[in-house]
């Protein structure tokens, strides 16, 4: 139950990060999701990524919509402010929050129902606006909380546990994100922590709209072999284009990968993304070829995972809006309220 606090005591030798926090300091309350839910693995990956990046937990804001996925922010980062908003509307709330304070890290957590159906419009527009954030969709192809209806990301022909077959065409959020101008686009699988944790870290380090679609099987309603969002199906059809290592500007750089299969991308903050390329012809800095590759593999029945696209020197919404460096929520009367003379000028001009 979420209102049951986890024991505060932990092993005295639990490793700490550069800020002196243990992994436990990044946890939230006990998950109420079904045992084995892919979403819990994603929460664990978020916790690990934040711990490893030495992020002060209170400098992260976590926002979500409604649904199983949107419940998860309660289960990680208990020292961060959270906002469980309305169904499909997390992107607008996150956009507003980001406008108010550009200095925090924004983590948006959503699901396929939340982002691909009711919130498809907001999903699209926050990516268009280049809101600096990490937007994670925990994608299981079903509505879990309302007990197993298909979502808009379910593949055509996909079969639910109770035998219903999906006949509608699927929405591929990754393809949409690429088309809409997201500057960091990745796909991963909740069962592949080795791939997911570095992707989350890289997305946090990225300035701009970073989107990660994480296929996360629903053990209750959509983990049967006929579902294309099941553990077995994803494991059998996963086509990883690269493996990612994130090297922060402050880290010592160790070169231990064979040249020729490694691509290095330097992000705006100096962090280095080292991609161990599995598909040799894959170029993660080319939006058009990323889209083409994605669609070709999809047609062949493969689920492409990895960092699909990154624009390392992207701009964000604040750049476009040309806002001051100081967070808007830190400005007071002195900066915001014009003087009496300005009002006198207004009055004078309207006579």
């Amino acid at each position: 139950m979420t209102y049951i606090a986890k024991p505060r005591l932990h092993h005295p030798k639990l490793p700490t990060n550069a800020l002196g926090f243990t992994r436990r300091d990044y946890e939230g309350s006990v998950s109420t999701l079904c045992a084995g839910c892919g979403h819990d693995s994603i929460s664990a990956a978020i916790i690990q990524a934040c711990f490893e990046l030495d992020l002060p937990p209170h400098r992260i804001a976590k926002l979500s919509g409604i649904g199983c996925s949107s419940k998860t922010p309660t289960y990680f980062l208990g020292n961060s402010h959270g906002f469980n908003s309305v169904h499909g509307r997390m992107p607008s709330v996150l956009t507003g929050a980001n406008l108010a304070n550009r200095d925090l890290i924004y983590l948006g957590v959503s699901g396929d129902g939340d982002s691909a159906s009711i919130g498809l419009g907001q999903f699209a527009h926050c990516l268009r606006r280049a809101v600096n954030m990490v937007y994670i969709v925990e994608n299981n192809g079903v509505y879990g909380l309302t007990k197993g209806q298909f979502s808009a990301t379910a593949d055509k022909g996909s079969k639910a546990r109770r035998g219903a077959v999906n006949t509608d065409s699927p929405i591929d959020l990754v393809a949409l994100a690429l088309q809409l101008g997201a500057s960091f686009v990745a796909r991963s699988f909740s069962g592949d922590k080795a791939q997911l944790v570095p992707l989350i870290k890289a997305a946090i380090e990225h300035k701009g709209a970073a989107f990660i679609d994480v296929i996360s099987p629903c053990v209750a309603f959509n983990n049967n072999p006929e579902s294309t969002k099941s553990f077995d199906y994803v494991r059998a059809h996963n086509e990883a284009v690269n493996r990612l290592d994130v090297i922060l500007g402050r880290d010592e750089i160790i070169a231990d990968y064979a040249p020729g299969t490694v691509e290095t991308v330097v992000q705006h903050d100096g962090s280095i993304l080292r991609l161990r390329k599995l598909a040799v012809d894959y170029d993660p800095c080319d939006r058009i070829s990323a889209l083409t590759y994605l669609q070709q593999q999809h047609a062949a029945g493969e689920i492409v995972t990895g960092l699909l696209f990154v624009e390392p020197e992207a701009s964000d919404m604040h750049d476009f809006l040309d806002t001051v460096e100081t967070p808007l929520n830190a400005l007071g009367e002195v900066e915001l309220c014009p003087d009496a003379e300005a009002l006198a000028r207004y009055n004078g001009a309207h006579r």
Partner: protein
Amino acid sequence: MATISKTGLAAIKSVNDFVVKFANVNGSGSASANGLFAKSILRMGIPASSRNIFPSNIQGLPTWYEVRISESGHLGRRGGVDLMVAMNPETWDDDVAEIEPGGYLFYDSTKPLPPSKFRDDVNVIGAPLTAICNREYTDARQRQLFKNIIYLGVLAALLDIDRVAIEKLIGEQFRGKDTLIKPNLHAFHLGRDWALSQLECPIGLRLQRVDKVGDRIFTTGNDAAALGCVYGGATVAAWYPITPSSSLAEAFSAHCHRLRRDPETKKRRFAIIQAEDELAAIGVVIGAAWNGARAFTATSGPGISLMQEFIGLAYFAELPAVIFDIQRGSPSTGMPTRTQQADILFCAYASHGDTKHVLLFPQDPRESFAFAADALDLADRLQTPVFVMMDLDIGMNEWLVEPLAWSEGRRYDRGKIMTAEMLEAGVEFGRYLDVDGDGIPYRTYPGTHPTRGAFFTRGTSKNRYAKYSEEGPDYVENMQRLLHKFETAKRLVPRPIRRTAREPTRYGAIYFGSTAAAMTEALEALEERGVHLDTMRVRAFPFHDDILDFVAGHDRVFVVEQNRDAQLRTLLISEGDIDPARLVPILHYDGTPITARFIVKAIADMLSVVTLAPLKKALP
């Protein structure tokens, strides 16, 4: 040549007190000439107000511009027209029918019209405007545009408008575009000189310089409210275009670009998002407010319909939000370019479940400026959505109002914010804990303290410490506290304004918003007829106790409003537990701003008196 009323009926004679209405076709460039007309009257020191009645269309449909000139300062609509400037053949019959007996009809006499097109009891003044234009100009666009300035010239002669005032205004209007000044002045003189030589000038309606305008200003509610948001410290605005509110957001942008840039870097101390829809607009506002910025949206009824779910979240999760509702004709798409006060109940109880919201009712642009800033304070203080209930009449028309005022040194009331220092000092933090007994809890902004003060904001039920809870007692306690907070709001919102009649009376009238302008004139007229009414102008919901005391102190109270269903009356009955029989509805809802004559007639009819001598006996 001028034709004079055939019946010889006494032509209306009036100095500085009459109504001129322009019937035009939209997109024909008449707005600028009509604006010059109204402003030139103000420059002569004569109070005037103007109202645009326009279609939901860009070009080709009928549009009207009505100017009320009143030396005694009555700036609401009076009703009736003394001089009709009939420039639209399509609406000719209705326009001619609207003229007062003995009034004047001015028209383009280039093409002769059959006598059946005129009225016997109206003075007809024709000017061959098209012929003059065709003679003077070869370019079709020029012929169209200058026709407006030419009729302005003719009117200047007919009404004796100060020539210099108009010349100066033309100079101001085209400042920076000097090549336009000369041809406009030329067109103006063309019309004026033609009229002075061909017509009997002035007519019975005449303007005479006085000094009754003082330092008042002429501005729209949307522009003033936007400036109020700048002074009030709003940094985030999110909106979706919708008539009649769009000009508020656009004005905010214009004011901010002038007043809100860092003096050195020129970077912006504001952020404006034109959202994909109203759902996103209110979402952005709520997200920004959650994170400690002052934020607002401007919309109209259909937009509020879309925002309902978020408004409920903001009420229940206790997040500030300022929402300007520039009301228009409803329901559905309704009459998008006409005015109404028909969103009162809908905003008071917006969203599903038990909700109540703070509403402010500004009466004019000046109060729109003041209430915009007040709303930002109230939203922060009460941690709840606050609606500023304007309407198209206030928002889009230019009103003559006292200069906007701001008290130097006024501080923003950011409400109860728990700071890092307070948390560090060990002050207990419960997000929904009523520590002060006013129903208002403390909140923390995200990012305040490394280990204390973080909480989870949610629309689901929770306990005092913001922990998810489906326990009945937790839910009930929270809902009761919200009700208590609403009681607190009564003490904080703008108080109603009471006016006592010259003579003691058992009758009262309640009104609000844009009705105020016509109401003052109506009360004066009623008084002349021996009807004395105490009045109360409601300025906010929840209702201050003064309002209930006012109702209790009168046998019958007229509630004057611009909607079909007597919405304020319903709200008074339900919230004040008032006997419905004591509140008599006076309702005007055809989409045009209410007139003084309408109010006088409706109240007089209600009192069942035409002649008012036996008033007291005639009353129930």
